[in-house]
């Protein structure tokens, strides 16, 4: 085991329950490296939803909350508002965040609450057996869309941006170093930080949508569909059709954070929350 794993993981819970080659492990590694680089282990509180990605916080030895399906953000809101000094990191899947918890997502982004949301996008409901998700590509065949998915997928980053999130970034599981740096930046950012990570799900999305169960080939396929923000400015709209933009998409430092404005209005305690 990697020394960073030795330091941060709950040994009793190992090995991870994920399939071989799952992107969640890489995201877990990137997160613990970001926490290590900032030295904030004592202040961190992790919230996990339901689904494969909701298991990421379970393995990290820090304050952990495993919440209901789609309700990660209400739990995280309570956690943050009870002590605004906490660094709350939320792990959620695409179905958890945009499907079941879509309404919570847009409202937490609108409030600009100072939490970091890491949304693992595997484009399918992986744990329950490969049903069509809000992020499944158009025309993709899944277990519940035999003739192809008739719906357009959600662009979670655009949604977060228009809803009021102040830090928005997108990476794939193949960009582990950039992802780790981006998570560290998101944790330090004061406001709603949203990071979408395109991750490979070899068992469900790989076999059903992309026709390969090889994690490396699948991740290469996903990576080939991305364009970095810097090179996207030189390309025309036609070349960007159906591509994911990766990198830091939005960073606004000017907006007031929710717990600050809330406790600022609270009055009697002089804007200070209860200890």
């Amino acid at each position, binding site marked *: *085991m*990697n*020394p*960073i*794993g030795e330091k941060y*993981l709950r040994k009793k819970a*190992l*090995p*991870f329950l*994920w*399939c*071989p*080659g*799952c*992107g*969640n*492990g*890489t995201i*877990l*590694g*990137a997160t613990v*490296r970001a926490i290590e680089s900032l030295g904030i282990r004592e202040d961190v509180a992790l919230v996990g939803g339901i689904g494969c990605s909701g298991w990421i916080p379970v393995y990290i030895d820090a304050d952990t909350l495993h919440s209901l399906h789609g309700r990660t953000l209400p739990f995280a809101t309570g956690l943050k508002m009870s002590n605004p000094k906490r660094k709350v990191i939320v792990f959620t899947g695409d179905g958890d965040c945009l499907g079941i918890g879509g309404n919570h997502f847009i409202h937490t982004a609108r409030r600009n609450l100072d939490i970091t949301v890491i949304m693992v996008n595997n484009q399918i409901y992986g744990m329950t057996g490969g049903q069509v998700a809000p992020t499944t590509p158009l025309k993709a065949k899944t277990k519940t869309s035999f003739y192809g998915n008739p719906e357009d997928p959600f662009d979670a980053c655009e949604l977060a941006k228009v809803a009021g999130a102040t830090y928005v970034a997108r990476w794939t*599981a*193949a960009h*582990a*170093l950039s992802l*780790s740096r981006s998570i560290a930046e998101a944790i330090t950012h004061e406001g709603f930080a949203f990071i979408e990570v395109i991750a490979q799900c*070899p068992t469900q999305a790989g076999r059903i949508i992309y026709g390969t169960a*090889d*994690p*490396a080939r699948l*991740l*290469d396929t996903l990576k080939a569909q991305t364009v970095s923000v810097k090179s996207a400015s030189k390309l025309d709209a036609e070349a960007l059709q159906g591509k994911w933009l990766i990198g830091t998409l939005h960073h606004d430092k000017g907006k007031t954070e929710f717990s600050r404005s809330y406790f600022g209005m609270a009055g009697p305690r002089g804007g200070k929350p209860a200890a």
Partner: protein
Amino acid sequence: MVDIIIDEQYCKGCELCMHYCPKQILKKSGRRNAKGYVPPMVADPEQCSNCRTCELICPELAITLEDKP
């Protein structure tokens, strides 16, 4: 120079490290671990450029790069 240490106990044989190694120095070991997966082995340690891609991408956190004096 670095040492590439692979913890075979945790490896699930996904081969992401082998695929993403820019120098292609990780190969299949042919051995099976207790769970039946085939972990990688370092075929040519001299070639390692210490980029840490394998260490960062490993979903099981099973690879460690240690600086050798």
